């Protein structure tokens, strides 16, 4: 009987064509608005590293001068070189890395390729393991090379392909970066987490990823080039050496602990560190540290912006309007057919059967609406991709979202169909037959 009802439903699409088309468009528009915003929201607020997001912590130390504290009491989002190096050398966490934005100009060995500008990161060797960075060739430099300004570099797959050709073996080859010769020790596999949760400060969160990674001393002793946010409260002494000595904040610092519960232990260490520094006449403010895991840090940094949340709310309210509208239109469509119901009832159909028939018909409309809704969602995401290059990479719909779209559309249509169907069942056969 179900397939017969399905067929009836399909045939009945042609009945009151204007109302049917209105209903399908209404459903499709509502569903696509809700799905478009939901896709963006989900991509923006998802856990970028679910295996260990509760064990990776972002460290903040309050470095500023007394008397100019910010209103909300929040310490600066980055730390000074001195503190980062002290924490790094102390190695009180199982794994840790400072993170410094940098850049350089690559001079290719090939004649046919002119020099080009690339951006990169100075990190510790733990960085790759901490953030599950996949390698397609070679491996990161060693912990011993962290401190020695070893001339080693890990490059992205894209940079390798550009310099040496696709899938070429780059290990051991040299990279001339702003006149410094570095040896390539590793090549990343495709790795572009969005948002760029490991570097939320001073870089485009949804933009391009870094193309090279070097030990931190390579940045501070050779490249001497800082990219990102720098915040100074005093005036550093001249030159790069003076800058390193200053309390300017420009380094981001991550630690990985063995378990989320080790957090208090490390936090105690941080507080003790600040007290110790105060004896050396540094860090004049009262102890004000922060230790936030990945999701807390993303929340603090406002990764999901208010616009996206507002848009999602409005889109679901919009879907609500579409549903109310569909109910009205279905009501109109179904109540135009009391005669048909009367005849069927008189011929022995039970109310349940009428109910099943009309609900199936509502379901058919939902399916067609879902199809159109998916097409419109893809269109809307293409629009978003075109106008906001920032979030372009976020807007790919996956199978999961596709299924959710179909389900929402179908449930919406069935829910909308309940009231009209129930009303259709109230038709009294006798009354209808009389007036035929």
């Amino acid at each position, binding site marked *: 009987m179900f397939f017969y009802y399905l067929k009836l439903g399909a045939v009945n699409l042609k009945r009151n064509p204007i109302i049917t088309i209105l209903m399908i468009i209404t459903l499709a528009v509502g569903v696509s*608005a809700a799905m478009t915003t939901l896709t963006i929201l989900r991509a923006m607020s998802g856990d970028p590293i679910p295996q260990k997001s509760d064990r990776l912590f972002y460290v903040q130390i309050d470095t500023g001068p007394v008397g100019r504290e910010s209103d909300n009491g929040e310490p600066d989002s980055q730390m000074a070189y001195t503190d980062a190096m002290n924490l790094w050398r102390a190695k009180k966490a199982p794994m840790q890395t400072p993170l410094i934005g940098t850049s350089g*100009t690559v001079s290719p060995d090939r004649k046919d390729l002119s020099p080009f500008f690339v951006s990169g990161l100075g990190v510790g060797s733990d960085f790759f393991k901490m953030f599950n960075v996949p390698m397609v060739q070679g491996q990161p430099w060693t912990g011993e090379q962290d401190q020695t300004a070893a001339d080693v570099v890990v490059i992205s797959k894209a940079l390798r392909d550009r310099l040496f050709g696709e899938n070429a073996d780059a290990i051991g080859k040299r990279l001339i970066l702003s006149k410094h010769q570095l040896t390539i020790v590793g090549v990343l596999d495709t790795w572009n987490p969005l948002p760029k949760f490991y570097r939320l400060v001073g870089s485009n969160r949804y933009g391009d990823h870094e193309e090279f990674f070097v030990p931190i001393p390579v940045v501070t002793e050779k490249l001497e080039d800082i990219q990102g946010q720098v915040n100074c409260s005093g005036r550093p002494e001249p030159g790069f050496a003076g800058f390193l000595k200053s309390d300017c904040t420009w380094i981001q610092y991550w630690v990985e602990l063995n378990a989320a519960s080790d957090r208090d232990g490390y936090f105690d260490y941080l507080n003790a560190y600040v007290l110790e520094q105060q004896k050396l006449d540094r860090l004049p403010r009262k102890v004000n540290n922060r230790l936030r895991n990945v999701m807390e840090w993303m929340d603090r940094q406002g990764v999901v912006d208010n616009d996206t949340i507002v848009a999602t*709310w*409005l889109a679901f309210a919009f879907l609500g*309007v579409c549903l109310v509208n569909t109910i009205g239109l279905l009501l109109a469509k179904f109540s135009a057919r009391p005669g048909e119901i009367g005849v069927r009832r008189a011929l022995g159909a039970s109310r349940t059967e009428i109910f099943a028939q009309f609900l199936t018909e509502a379901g058919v409309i939902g399916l067609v609406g879902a199809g159109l809704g998916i097409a419109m969602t893809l269109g809307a995401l293409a629009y978003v991709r075109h106008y906001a290059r*920032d979030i372009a990479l976020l807007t790919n719909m996956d199978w999961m979202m596709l299924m959710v779209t179909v389900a929402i559309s179908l449930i919406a249509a069935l829910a909308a169909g309940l009231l009209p169907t129930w009303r259709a069942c109230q038709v009294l056969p006798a009354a209808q037959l009389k007036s035929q």
Partner: protein
Amino acid sequence: MEVRPILSTLFRNKTAPLLIAAQVALTLAIVANALYIIQERLAAAARPSGADEANIARIELSPIGDMADPKSIQEVDLQTLRAIPGVVSATWANQIPLGQSGWNSGGLSLKEDNENASLSGAHYFSPGSLIDAYGLKLIAGRDFTQDDVFDHDPDSGNAAPKFVIITKALADALQPGITNYNELLGKPMYGVAEEPAQIIGVIERLQTPWANAGAEGEQSYILPIRYLTGAFQYAIRSEPGQLEPVLKAASEALSKLRSDRVLNSQRTFAEIRESRYANEMLMAGLLIAVTLFLLLITASGIVGLASLWVNQRRKQIGVRRALGARKIDVIRYFLVENVLITTGGALFGLVLALSLNQVLVRQMEIPRLPLSYVGIGMAIMWVLGLLAVLGPALRAAKVPPAVATRTI
């Protein structure tokens, strides 16, 4: 007016009118809030930067390794740029309004003791005239001369500029309530460098590279500094309509000059503005689309249900016509009925719009919705409802009185 019989008919058959009223209420709540957010975003994106936007571009070059004597390289570059036909002005400039990256200094003050000052401003500097290169409007004092320019090598010393030009917004923040900007001329401004810099000019407007909301987005100042680094960043102003060819010629000429640096970016101001406000425009665009679709859908719902009523009531309409009602009376019946339903929905929508806004205010720090937007929304709903019901009403008016005699 026949309001009473219409009302009693509505109450007897509640479902459909309730659905329309609910739809009107929801639509009104969303449209009023969306219109407000759209207006806010478009207003933010339309704020002027103070620069001659149509004719400005920026070129950046990055050095390959260290560069000796950046001063003479800058001079050769600028001579080359100024020789290009169509170039009105060219200078080295550390940043550009709306460029989204740049320098910011805190602790600005007219007094020496500024330990607690939290006033900050965007820190522009250039060895030439930014007033010329960006086309800014000077409202008091004078521009820098070549004698004012101070060479600064970041590797060996700290900048000590003697003079500064500030924006009106920064002047207002430094000395609240100021009316005559000439008063500030000759006064020292602290916080820029070791020594205070003397204010010699006030410009109408110059947005910061971040163009934040409110007055903060226009708190900027300019210093006459020649910065001796390998970062070559030029501002170019062209004759009207000449920007595209000028920018192309400039990029080619600079690339040809030396092989030890890389052309990093070349952008017109229009591109810089577009990139700064991409998110605002996207949000406004999506909300406009949502609003239009919503109105369309609500209208379609009213058309659908009104058509249904007309069909259901053909006999009654026929009877009324047979009893002497004119066509206009039938049309008026449907219009009045629609106004009643819309009004009911709109009143409920008013409450809904304000509660939705309340949630947005509390959760998203969005400013409170002015009541005028709800008023505009209600007016839109009335007009929309009347337009939507007009078609079915006209069809109802065409029902011939003879229908009354056919089946009864």
